[in-house]
């Protein structure tokens, strides 16, 4: 364990955030920009120097700055330690690198916004929280960042707060994320109750405990894994908790690029990989992850096909690509000797996706910037002439996400497709479950992903053709206003596009070029490769199939949308109006949740308040109060003020008391006798007392005389 001042990495942006939010308005935009950019750049430099150390030796770097006890209660001892290993270093580089680029871009994009300083404050706050999430050495520290990024996401989605819709979208994001946090919190509680630790590094020494059967014959690791998965589906927008991400596009575009595409939404993938040893105990948990990922990938991609809002298409694409990463995490190979999964592929795709998706979003931002905020693709077209840089970079990123060789998306998507194809969650056998999990499921998921890849190529190029080709479909006035974005924006677009083209070469599989998988090698000390035996021939077969699927998608998109909406498109929409509406309205999932969860919650709340609280509980209270009043009102007539009545009452009372005492005294006379025996010396009573003492209560010797135990 090597020491490194890691705490500066999140503290720099956090200090920047504090400065921007407290003093930003006073010091002006220039200084705010400088502070915000420098703080991110500074932490990026620190990450770079830490990565150099990690390059020399893979020993994780640690930081004892916060290691004094953070929470200490009973047997729970938590320290807020930070650590950087090769896995978190990848995330750190993405967060600070792409984060810095997006800061630069935002300084141009947001230049005329009233809330400029507030925006940079939130953005820096996000950077700090995200870096804490990534650097945390235990689940609670990660959770601090986890909730922190959720907060920033909330604040930034609702950044233009005066529109009700934006505020609603922000709140929806926070609440849905909280459902995930609920899972994460319980996962922590469960892990602690099992193992007594929450540190990632100590997890491998508790595998035995985690493997013990908990309920219904399933190991504790399964339930732990499911709870973590609930958290991950919330943050990474997977079924059933993906609904917040498309709405999150209400935020400014740089936010969509940074938080809702490149970094925060990948946190779920990261946490799953972080806790991989726990998942490997029971590989069927990994199968669940893969199934959720594949279903989400396909589901979101089909929605993306018909959306008309530029950013919505990209949002569904993000959900879909995150599904790819989940499949990567879940593509396990379970042999009697070992369990491995395609974590490397997932993280590789996480990295390439960060580049091309950030590029796509910022490209979208550039387009909308040129069109004064217009985001409807039916009102675009022919923009390639007006926005040459945006067009070129957008095309490169589109090719990357479609998985065209040799761009980055090709290599990373292929890694995931190959991993899914090779996956087997149970060792080969003859039982029904074995056959399904070892032979069929991997193939099914592979085919789903293949279809998704074709779909992805289709909707991305539909978007591309509709925006950049054909004739402009907006008004003349809009046409006059179209202008290419400033250099601070296009420069960033080019950097990201070059990344989208190039980063894939870091992870060329060994079967293609021996020793070409630098990325896998880098991660090797943290997570092993998926132990698939793949030949070069198999690799290229799969690659050609995938390329074919992508090419088909692009070809179809070109045929239908090259010159705007073609007649065939209109004909199809007219022929199947219900299908069109069903998909266009996102399968009515939002409406479904609204009807099944949101509205009932309102009714239940109202019912509990009006019926249970006001009527029953408070009603009972008021009834008691009212009865007292009534009784008082009646009984007060007894107070006549007439002495004769009082004397009569007294006599009646005395007679009653006398009669009762004779009656009761007769029955319970013996009790008086026993009470009298108390006066007899206590020593005589001692043996009897010992006799009635129950057997196994350890009684201490009694001191005679006063019945005291000393």
């Amino acid at each position: 364990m090597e020491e490194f001042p890691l705490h500066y990495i999140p503290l720099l942006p956090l200090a920047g955030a504090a400065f921007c939010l407290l003093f930003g308005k006073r010091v002006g935009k220039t200084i705010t920009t400088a502070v915000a950019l420098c703080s991110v750049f500074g932490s990026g430099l620190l990450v770079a120097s830490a990565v150099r150390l990690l390059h020399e030796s893979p020993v994780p770097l640690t930081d004892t700055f916060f290691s004094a006890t953070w929470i200490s209660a009973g047997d729970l001892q938590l320290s807020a330690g930070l650590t950087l290993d090769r896995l978190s270093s990848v995330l750190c580089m993405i967060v600070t690198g792409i984060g810095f680029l997006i800061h630069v871009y935002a300084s141009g994009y947001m230049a005329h916004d009233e809330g400029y300083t507030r925006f940079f404050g939130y953005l820096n706050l996000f950077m700090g929280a995200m870096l804490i999430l990534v650097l945390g050495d235990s689940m609670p520290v990660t959770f601090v960042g986890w909730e922190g990024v959720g907060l920033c996401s909330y604040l930034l989605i609702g950044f233009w707060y005066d529109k009700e819709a934006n505020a609603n979208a922000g709140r929806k994001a926070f609440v849905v994320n909280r459902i995930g946090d609920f899972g994460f919190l319980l996962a922590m509680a469960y892990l602690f109750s099992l193992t007594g630790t929450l540190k990632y590094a100590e997890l491998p020494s508790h595998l035995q405990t985690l493997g013990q059967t908990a309920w219904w014959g399933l190991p504790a690791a399964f339930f732990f894994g499911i709870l973590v998965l609930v958290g991950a589906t919330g943050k990474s927008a997977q079924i059933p908790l993906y609904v917040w991400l498309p709405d999150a596009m209400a935020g400014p575009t740089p936010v969509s690029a940074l938080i809702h595409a490149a970094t925060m939404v990948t946190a779920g993938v990261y946490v799953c990989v972080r806790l991989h040893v726990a998942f490997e105990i029971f590989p069927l948990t990994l199968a669940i992850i893969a199934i959720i990922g594949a279903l989400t990938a396909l589901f979101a991609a089909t929605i993306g096909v018909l959306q008309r809002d530029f950013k919505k298409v990209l949002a569904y694409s993000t959900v879909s690509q995150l599904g790819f990463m989940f499949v990567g995490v879940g593509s396990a190979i379970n042999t009697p000797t070992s369990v491995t999964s395609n974590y490397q592929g997932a993280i590789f795709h996480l990295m390439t996706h960060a580049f091309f998706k950030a590029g796509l979003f910022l490209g979208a931002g550039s387009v909308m910037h040129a069109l004064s905020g217009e985001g409807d693709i039916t009102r675009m077209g022919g923009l390639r002439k007006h926005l040459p840089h945006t067009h070129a970079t957008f095309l490169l990123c589109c090719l990357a996400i479609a998985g065209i060789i040799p761009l980055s998306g090709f290599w990373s998507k292929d890694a995931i497709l190959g991993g899914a194809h090779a996956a087997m969650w149970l060792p080969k056998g003859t039982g029904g479950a074995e056959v399904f999990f070892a032979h069929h499921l991997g193939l099914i998921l592979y085919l789903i992903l293949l279809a998704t890849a074709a779909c992805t190529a289709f909707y991305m190029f539909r978007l591309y053709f509709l925006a950049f080709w054909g004739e402009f479909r907006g008004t003349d006035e809009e046409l006059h206003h179209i202008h290419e974005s400033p250099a601070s924006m296009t420069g960033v677009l080019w950097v990201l596009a070059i990344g989208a083209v190039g980063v894939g070469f870091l992870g060329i599989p060994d079967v293609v070029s021996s020793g070409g998988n630098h990325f896998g090698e880098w991660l090797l000390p943290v997570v092993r490769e998926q132990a698939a035996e793949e030949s070069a021939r198999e690799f290229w077969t799969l690659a050609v199939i995938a390329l074919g699927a992508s090419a088909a998608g692009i070809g179809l998109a070109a045929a239908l949308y090259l010159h705007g909406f073609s007649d065939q498109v209109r004909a199809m929409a007219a022929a199947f109006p219900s299908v069109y509406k069903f998909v266009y309205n996102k399968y009515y999932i939002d409406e479904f949740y609204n009807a099944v969860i949101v509205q009932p919650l309102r009714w239940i709340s109202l019912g509990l308040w009006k019926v249970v609280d006001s009527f029953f509980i408070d009603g009972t209270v008021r009834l008691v109060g009212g009865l007292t009043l009534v009784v008082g009102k009646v009984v007060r007539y007894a107070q006549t003020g007439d002495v004769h009545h009082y004397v009569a009452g007294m006599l009646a009372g005395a007679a009653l008391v006398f009669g009762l005492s004779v009656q009761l005294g007769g029955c319970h006379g013996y009790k008086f006798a026993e009470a009298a025996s108390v006066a007899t010396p206590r020593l005589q009573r001692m043996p009897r007392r010992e006799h009635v003492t129950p057997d196994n209560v350890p009684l201490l010797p009694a001191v005679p005389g006063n019945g005291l135990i000393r």
Partner: protein
Amino acid sequence: MILPLITFLPLVGALLLMLIPREEESILRGTALFFTLATFVISLGLLPDFDGANFSHVIDWTWIEALGVHFHLGVDGISLWLVLLTTFLMPIVLFSTGTSITKKVREFAIAMLVLESGMIGTFLALDLFVFYVFWEIMLIPMYFIIGIWGGDRRVYASIKFVLYTMVGSLLMLVAIIYIYVRHHDASNTWTFDYFTLSRVVLSTREQMYCFLAFGLAFAIKVPLFPFHTWLPDAHVEAPTAGSVILAAVLLKFGTYGLLRFAMPFFPRAMVEMAPYLAIASVIGIVYGSLVAFAQTDIKKMIAYSSVAHLGFVVLGLSMWNAKAIDGAVYQMLAHGISTGGLFLAIGVIYERRHTRRLEEFGGLMAVMPRYTAVFMIITLASVGLPGLSGFVGEFLVLVGTFGAYKTWPHGGPIFYAHPKILAVVAATGVILSAVYMLYLFQKMFFGPLSNPRNRGLKDLSNRELAVFAPMLLMAFWLGLYPSTFLSAIDPAVRRTIAEFQHKVMIKVPEGEKARLMPEGGGPEPVKHKEELDDKF
């Protein structure tokens, strides 16, 4: 000598105020503020070299010899922070009333000072007689604060508050006298001393009756579902200062009493009743959150959120393991800061607009950015965002509850109240708190500024910022560096649990005299559920 000083200094201040003419409002305010500030500064003197595990700064003066009443005060890690919370909040609250309380200023200041004495004395009392006296003393000023300076239905609310509380506390008085007599039966000495009486072991049935009497008093105070309906009325009608103190400190007497008296005095009853307490508190968490979500009055919403937050506290207490109880005590402090802060913040807007109806607001962020920022931070502290005060307590209670199956005695009497299930249900409070608090926040601050009456609203003045600054500081401190507080709480909680685990092993047959647990522990303490099951 610090303890009697901080207990009676506010009372001295109150007496002094009676001498000042009622017209001299600024002198009255200044004097009251001075006394509360002085009390706070002196109470800080408790902090150096504080030994959380044992009672320190103890004073023990004979008061009424014939009855065995001693004026016995002491402070340990559990009461320390609650006392400091009280002394910390009083000057803030008094300072904040500078603009909101304009009628009967002198009487108001006197009521607040007497209230402070009552509250501090109740936290510090180590003699049950003294405890009861202080317990009742704080009722009276609160009654006046709601009844005189409250809203339109203030009389109804104040009477409801007093009657509710009285019902509980009279039963508690009966129970106190019962232990007092039973102790005399066993030892031939009359005493109300906390340490002596806490070593009295009653038979299980007696424990049950006494626990119910104590428990009802405390459950009403907490308030535990379903004894909570006085709270929304009291909160809505009370003036801001009253609401803040009510939420931040007075409610804590319920949970403090459970931990300090009900649990250690009647361990067997506690073991029997813990599942019921836990179920009621979990219902309170979900129910309070949902009912809060339905409210249209901002203050009522926060009042119901208190039911949910205090549910976490009682859940933690009923688990009787160190993590959960630490978390419960921590949550008491955190709730004091966050809900106290929320009521202060609502007071600010009420003063400007004289309404608390949610639909009157919207888009306030455009005109009141500072206020929005303050409200946001307190809201986030209230929903338990890590890094702010609410998180640590909730986290510890959840972790403690989840692991409690090792010490919890029964599966559950009504239905299967497994601690893990309770924890899962309680954790939904994390989701629900975000649902109603963010709804509140959005309705107040986001959206268009459509109501013309909100257009000209002034942002926080520097004076108001000065009120909130210490609250925000504490919210961050509690969230970022819990060690400051836990290092005192944890030893005291462990001591309480250790005594509990000794005492729960002693069984007194029905109809027998009470016994006294020897000093320094009784039989081998119980550690696990299985052991306990054997003994019962």
